[in-house]
């Protein structure tokens, strides 16, 4: 069976959810194997999780290089394993770094590259990737026509399903090529206790209508009652009301959660580009003409400072 190589993204010693989605998707294409890089002592438990989600083999490589140098050590490792094992495809999470790693691996392998797939199926001539483009107004199906397909997949593209496999650990010694930027320091992001924006099943976002930084309190309360991540429109971020790391839109994060709640967001193209692929969309806005209402499954024309707290109370009462 064709071997499908999955780069397993991890943080704080734990597998990140999108990696489990990748392993789930990989099973549609062949037999998944996982690559765990620079995980230190956590490698064993990460490998075990990868095995639970279908990885027959887990390639583990470690070294200070993974932490001290940007992108390149991962490219070295992934390329080396892909070449040595003669894999049929390489899957990487679509994050800023994931795409960079994938691109360089593709070039080294002499392979075509597809980024930001939202769906992946087996086809007659290799994997068929679906991408959502131009602010999600088009769906494009593409295949790689040269080399081993290297594909990055957006978080939330599939629901992770466990499918226990051997998960046999194989340690790999990587020949590092160097020539990378040095990571002088790394400061982990302070955890808000909320789910990661791109990975969360529910996202509650606030926009210009929130009016002020303090106004995000009602957005956060609703998000917490739903176990959701908090997002913000560019207008709200530009106004300094919420951190840029939470910006949803063309120049921020692109999210496709099961449920997206837009509060006080008009729905300009810039924002739609970041959330239009959400499964269910709900909006609260004072302006009945706001373009966001063209997208919603359910919309409330009204004051978010009245509607959101009432909704939060209702959820609390259930």
């Amino acid at each position, binding site marked *: 069976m064709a071997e499908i190589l999955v780069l397993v993204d991890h943080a704080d010693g734990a597998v990140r959810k999108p990696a489990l989605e990748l392993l789930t998707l990989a099973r549609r294409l062949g037999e998944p194997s996982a690559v765990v890089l620079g995980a230190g002592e956590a490698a064993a438990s990460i490998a075990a999780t990868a095995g639970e989600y279908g990885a027959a083999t887990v390639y583990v490589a470690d070294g200070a290089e993974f932490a001290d140098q*940007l*992108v*390149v050590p991962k490219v070295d490792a992934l390329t080396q394993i892909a070449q040595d094992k003669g894999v049929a495809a390489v899957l990487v999470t679509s*994050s*800023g*770094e994931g*795409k*960079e790693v*994938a*691109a*360089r691996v*593709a*070039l*080294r392998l002499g*392979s*075509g*590259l597809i*980024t*930001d797939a939202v769906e992946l199926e087996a086809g007659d001539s290799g994997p*068929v990737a679906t991408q959502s*483009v131009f602010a999600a*107004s*088009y*769906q*494009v*199906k*593409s*295949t*790689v*026509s*040269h080399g081993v397909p290297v594909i990055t997949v957006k978080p939330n593209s599939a629901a992770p399903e466990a499918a226990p496999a051997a998960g046999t650990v194989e340690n790999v010694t990587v020949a590092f090529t160097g020539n*990378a*930027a040095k*990571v*002088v320091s*790394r*400061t982990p*992001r302070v955890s808000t206790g909320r789910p*990661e924006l791109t990975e969360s099943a*529910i996202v509650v976002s606030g926009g210009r209508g929130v009016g002020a930084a303090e106004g995000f309190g009602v957005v956060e309360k609703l998000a917490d009652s739903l176990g959701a991540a908090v997002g913000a429109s560019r207008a709200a971020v530009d106004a300094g009301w919420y951190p840029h790391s939470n910006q949803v839109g*063309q*120049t921020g994060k692109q999210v496709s959660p099961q*449920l997206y709640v837009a509060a006080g967001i008009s729905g300009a193209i810039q924002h739609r580009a970041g959330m239009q692929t959400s499964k*269910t*969309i*709900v909006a609260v806005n004072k302006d*009945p003409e706001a373009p966001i*209402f063209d*997208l919603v499954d*359910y*919309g*409330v*024309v009204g004051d978010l400072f*009245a509607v959101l*707290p*009432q*909704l939060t*109370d*209702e*959820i609390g009462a259930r």
Partner: protein
Amino acid sequence: MTLRIAVCVKYVPDATGDRGFADDLTVDRDEVDGLLSELDEYAVEQALRISEESDDAEVTVITVGPDDAKDALRKALSMGADKAVHVNDDDIHGSDVIGTSAIVAKALEKTGFDLVICGMASTDGTMGVLPALLAERLNLPQVTLLSEVSVEGELVKGRRDGDAATELLEAPLPAVVSVTDQSGEARYPSFKGIMAAKKKPVEELDLDDLGIDADEVGLAGSWTQVGEVTARPPRTAGTIVTDEGDGGKQLAAFLSSQKFI
């Protein structure tokens, strides 16, 4: 020594227009007005700031694109870049990012540079991988997705705000940098800049000049293939209610019916 900064920019269809695809499934460039990709303006801005900080620097802006792409160059020149390189060849049409990176890398080598600066992604393709590919092809360190960048002596330094952590990076020159939209607001061209732009040199190059065979790039040379393009079906009209005191409760009922709560 002159610090030679090369900025890679892209001419893209206006994101606020009704973008679509041509018959050959490439991006339709006729229906919507084009412009300098907004995210590349940040790259031009950082190049100009580094240039202004430096005793002696020259900013060259490079694009690969059809005739109209000169508008993107003109904009960058009017912002203050010193000269431009326009790679324009009918055979480039339909190139994927791997092919495009080959062309840009050759153009950079031909132009000469100490520092390459790119935007974080284009606003049409939004892949964000060209800087990494250039670093790979040119065998240089990539110092990418920076929200802050500076050149100090022979080093380029920057701050990368990732999903999980903020990293401080550095690499010796020459290097490939990309900057995010957090790196600092791009300036507007001044009247003087606009008037001066027309007189600045724009070098026109084709594939022959770069020693690239036509079959290595373009649609035919692409390593990916677009099978089908479908317009996303319009979302079916949802229910819109007006809050009359119980909007939150109605919304809760909807979310409950959808099993979210």
